[in-house]
């Protein structure tokens, strides 16, 4: 009896809030929360999709760290190289571009921001068409033709099929499309900084633009910096399929462009070792979480 009364009271007080939340909550649980939990659980099993998952403890993780030569020799170093250059590299580039745009009047600023943002609107499938044509491996490829004309190379280069060129191209292509939501957020953040702060600092003798950036701009827009950082980290790890899209093969030629995401697909959808693939997924999610924590350290507000 009392339970029913207290339930009614709860329903009157909080019921409407949960009703408003319900549709999002259901979708969130089904498509985000459960997949993460299932990935975590599967990572402790052997699962080939035919028989039921068989628990094998930490075996997948041990194999990943001790047996998987491809992972240790190619995937992990590749992922770190790619992540460092595209993540922090792209992030700093986004900030500097946003900062320079903020120094311009409204109309040119909007136009240039649109141009810088537009690559991030393109879809992976659209760009696969474009990059494959631009980097085409015969002498009628655009880049080959240009470089042959300029006399920089003597023979056409197999851009997308050669191990030493694939990774740099992946990085450039990803940076090209990385001026997305985080970039816009930082641009908005820079424009919102109270101009009186700059004037006050100028009176105090702070005039150098670099000093302004580090002592005024960045500290005044930490929340946007953090949002931009999280978006950069997620975008970096999300972009993993680019190597396969460019070279048209998984695994990529001599594993040159093999990243964690491709390794997951390789084991999950090509070899049907779902348990092992799930273990790699967990490693990937932990890496994202780790880097986001790091960003949090840098830009989190002190007064929590």
């Amino acid at each position, binding site marked *: 009896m009392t339970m029913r009364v207290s339930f009614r009271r709860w329903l009157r007080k909080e019921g409407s809030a949960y009703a408003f939340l319900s549709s999002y909550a259901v979708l969130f649980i089904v498509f985000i929360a459960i*997949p993460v939990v299932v990935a975590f659980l599967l990572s402790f099993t052997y699962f080939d999709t035919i028989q039921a998952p068989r628990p094998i403890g930490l075996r997948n993780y041990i194999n990943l760290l001790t047996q998987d030569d491809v992972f240790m020799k190619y995937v992990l170093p590749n992922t770190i190289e790619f992540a460092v250059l595209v993540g922090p590299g792209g992030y700093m580039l986004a900030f500097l571009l946003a900062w320079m745009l903020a120094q*311009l009047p409204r109309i040119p600023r909007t136009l240039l921001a649109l141009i810088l943002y537009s690559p991030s609107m393109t879809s992976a499938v659209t760009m696969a068409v474009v990059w494959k044509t631009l980097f085409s491996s015969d002498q009628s490829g655009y880049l080959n033709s240009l470089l042959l004309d300029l006399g920089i190379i003597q023979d056409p280069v197999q851009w997308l099929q050669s191990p030493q060129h694939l990774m740099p191209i992946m990085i450039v292509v990803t940076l090209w499309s990385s001026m997305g939501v985080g970039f816009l957020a930082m641009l908005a953040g820079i424009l919102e900084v109270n101009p009186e702060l700059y004037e006050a600092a100028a009176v105090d003798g702070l005039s150098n633009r670099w000093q302004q950036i580090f002592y005024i701009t960045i500290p005044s827009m930490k929340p946007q910096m953090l949002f931009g950082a999280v978006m950069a980290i*997620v975008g970096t790890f999300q972009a993993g399929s680019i190597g396969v899209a460019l070279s048209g093969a998984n695994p990529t030629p001599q594993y040159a462009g093999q990243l964690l995401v491709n390794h997951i697909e390789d084991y999950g959808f090509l070899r049907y070792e779902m348990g092992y693939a799930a273990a790699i997924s967990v490693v990937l999610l932990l890496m994202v979480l780790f880097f986001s924590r790091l960003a949090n350290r840098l830009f989190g507000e002190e007064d929590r």
Partner: protein
Amino acid sequence: MRSRSRRKSYSLRNSGINPSGFHPSQIQFYIILAPVVAFMLVPIIFIVSNAFKPPEELFAYPPRFFVVNPTGKNFADLFTLFSASDVPVSRYLFNSIMVTVVSMAASLIVSSTAAFALSKKRFKLKQTLFAVNTVALMFVPVAVAIPRFLIIARLGLINSALVHVLPALAMPVGLFLLKQFIDSIPNDVIEAAQIDGASDLQIYWRIVLPMVKPALATIAILTFQATWNNADTSAMYINVEGLKTFAFYLSTLSSTTTGANLVAGQGMAAAAALIMFVPNLLLFIILQSQVMSTMSHSGLKG
């Protein structure tokens, strides 16, 4: 407004952040930005230029970047030819438009109702649930492609049109941006309405939604990009050719293994690439000032 003496010391109206006009100090930024902007533009111009190239220009040697004799032939081919499995291209395009429109509408409702509750309602788990969503900002969908596949199969969504829509609706970034924006509506406004006897549904519909239009525009764009550009859903969850989307069709044109007619395929792929890109661009141009105003509320407190 600004005194003349201070003007001299630092802040000329047109230099510094957000100037109102031209100032010589801006030239340096134009000079640095010019090559970057040019680099960003090359592939975009290429998409446009290639779509209008006749076959002899697409395969010309030496290749030419800009189109010389523009033609609409690639578009004509695209819409008259049938795909390898006898599905007309217009069918893929229709599917894409339907999926995108339905997803955008559904996403606006799902995100805004939840954001309203997380911002303006009082309940015990409020902070916790928002924190969970903030952690989920870091969620990388490709990492859990396998469990997602298993769950979607278990729910019987394989080969269902719904699979194009439902997973796209759980969008932590969308909820986050919208919630931050609703936070900026003063509580007094909500309380005044409550005193006047407005129900939560009325407050949500008549007061909150009209005040957060910029954020809604942003959610619409993000959902648009996530669904319109999506080829993976069709590839992974749909085996019925008539239910696949235009983005998927484009991916088959560009892959060398299925391109039955490589020469016609290249031109069609170029035309299809332009059709994929233009709606993205137009939508952003129309809504860009709304998006920027949302982004100034995007701050993430650690």
